[in-house]
């Protein structure tokens, strides 16, 4: 129902723009003097001829790298094989992108067996299903959280770059995360298909564009992995549901 309404509104806008365009064409087009129209086309040509140079300065270099073929639900595999993986291993994994490393200082004295550090898996009461791996290690003397996201390609553009890491903090003896609202609006410009007229791949390109929407795959927000390193002497208690593992 809403989509139909949306369609109708769009059509009305297009029709209005079209009518307005024709009216403008008729009223302005005929009145513009020859001198002015020559100047206008000259200006337009200059702008167009300059635009490749401008575009070269402004637009980022096209990613010429081939997209990595990331297995679907790769984060699940990482999570299941947590025993065999370690942090350096994940940092070098080409299927994962390291978002950030946050170090949270803890006051060891204030935690004991009776009052351990609580690790919460919810943000404002809302449970988030993320993948949490807690590693108890002696290499750190404070809580170190490394966040990873599964790399995710749309049109061979790496979307995982756009992800905002969660902000972890300790408050009231509770280690908790604030999940930021992620809104990714990605716009891309593709060349007109007839540029590949004689490449023999026209139909392939067309097909590729049609199947683009289907290749969207799993919701990428679930592809986050939080690797939490906790010093050995720190007492902690995990509270919550959600998938999590402890690596001793």
């Amino acid at each position: 129902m809403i989509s139909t309404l949306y369609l109708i509104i769009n059509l009305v806008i297009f029709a209005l723009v079209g009518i307005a365009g024709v009216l403008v064409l008729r009223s302005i087009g005929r009145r513009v003097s020859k001198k002015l129209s020559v100047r206008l086309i000259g200006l337009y040509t200059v702008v167009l001829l300059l635009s490749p140079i401008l575009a070269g300065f402004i637009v980022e270099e096209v990613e010429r790298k081939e997209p990595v073929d990331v297995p679907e639900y790769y984060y699940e595999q990482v999570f299941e094989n947590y025993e065999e993986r370690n942090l350096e291993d994940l940092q070098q994994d080409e299927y994962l992108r390291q978002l950030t490393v946050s170090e949270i200082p803890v006051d060891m004295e204030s935690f004991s067996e009776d009052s351990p550090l609580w690790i919460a898996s919810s943000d404002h009461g809302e449970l988030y299903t993320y993948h949490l791996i807690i590693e108890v290690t002696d290499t750190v003397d404070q809580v170190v959280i490394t966040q990873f996201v599964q790399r995710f390609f749309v049109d061979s553009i790496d979307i995982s770059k756009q992800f905002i890491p969660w902000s972890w903090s300790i408050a009231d003896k509770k280690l908790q995360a604030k999940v930021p609202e992620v809104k990714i609006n990605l716009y891309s410009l593709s060349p007109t298909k007839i540029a590949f007229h004689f490449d023999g791949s026209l139909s392939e390109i067309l097909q590729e564009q049609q199947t683009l929407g289907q290749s969207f795959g799993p919701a990428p927000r679930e592809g986050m992995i939080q690797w939490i390193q906790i010093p050995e002497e720190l007492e902690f208690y995990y509270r919550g549901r959600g998938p999590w593992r402890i690596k001793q």
Partner: protein
Amino acid sequence: MNSIIHKESPMTIAFKQIKDKLYHNTNAFVYLIILHLIGYFFSFSTGMGFGSSGNSFEFIYRNFTTTTLYVLTILWMIMQGFTLAEEKSRQYYMVSNNFTAYFSDIAVLEIYALIGGTLTLFSGFLLQVFGTIFMENFVLHSLYGSMGTLNYLTLFLTGTLYFLIFGTAAYLVGILRVRYQTRFALGALAAAVVIILLSILSASILQRPIFIDVASLFRFYLEETRFFIWLIKVLLTIAALYGLSYVSIKNMEVNRS
């Protein structure tokens, strides 16, 4: 035959007419600019997109192309083809016969097609600039990575020649309309009725619903990947359209009204 008054060959007169027509129709370029501006607007509002959303996560992806600009330039070429054909009925030029009028018309159409082809070739770059200015998270599709000089040349050549086909076709239709006036309208109507009737009949009797497939006509050109065969196809089409319009204009009375 040389003109007695001007003592000039038909070709010289034709070249003078080309200049004159280009000057007289300078406003055509204003139409082109306005159409292109509309094209830029449409390109950014009709991008193919899809999205996904969940709790605290929203992802929208849109993809733009310069196709709208091509469509609008084709529209412009059709407009110009009609305009040039219409002016046959008011020949105010210097000594003019059907040959010089025809020759200068197709030459002007070719110049228009060249201008259209060049401008639309560069419109992709302008869209890039607009995109980076007006949108955050604007990227180029990976296909741009595989664009080489040959692809740009292809874009220019195919664009120009397709524009020319549409312009010449419009010119031919315009000439036929000017020449046959009411009979043309009746004939077009009759042709439409015949085509619709035939397709209905073929659908009901022969059980083959598609009688005239416009898409297959486009595919005839668009899906040709061998360059020389494509060039022959396109050039033959243009030549046929030129020939037909010349035959139609050849013994036409210059001042009919």
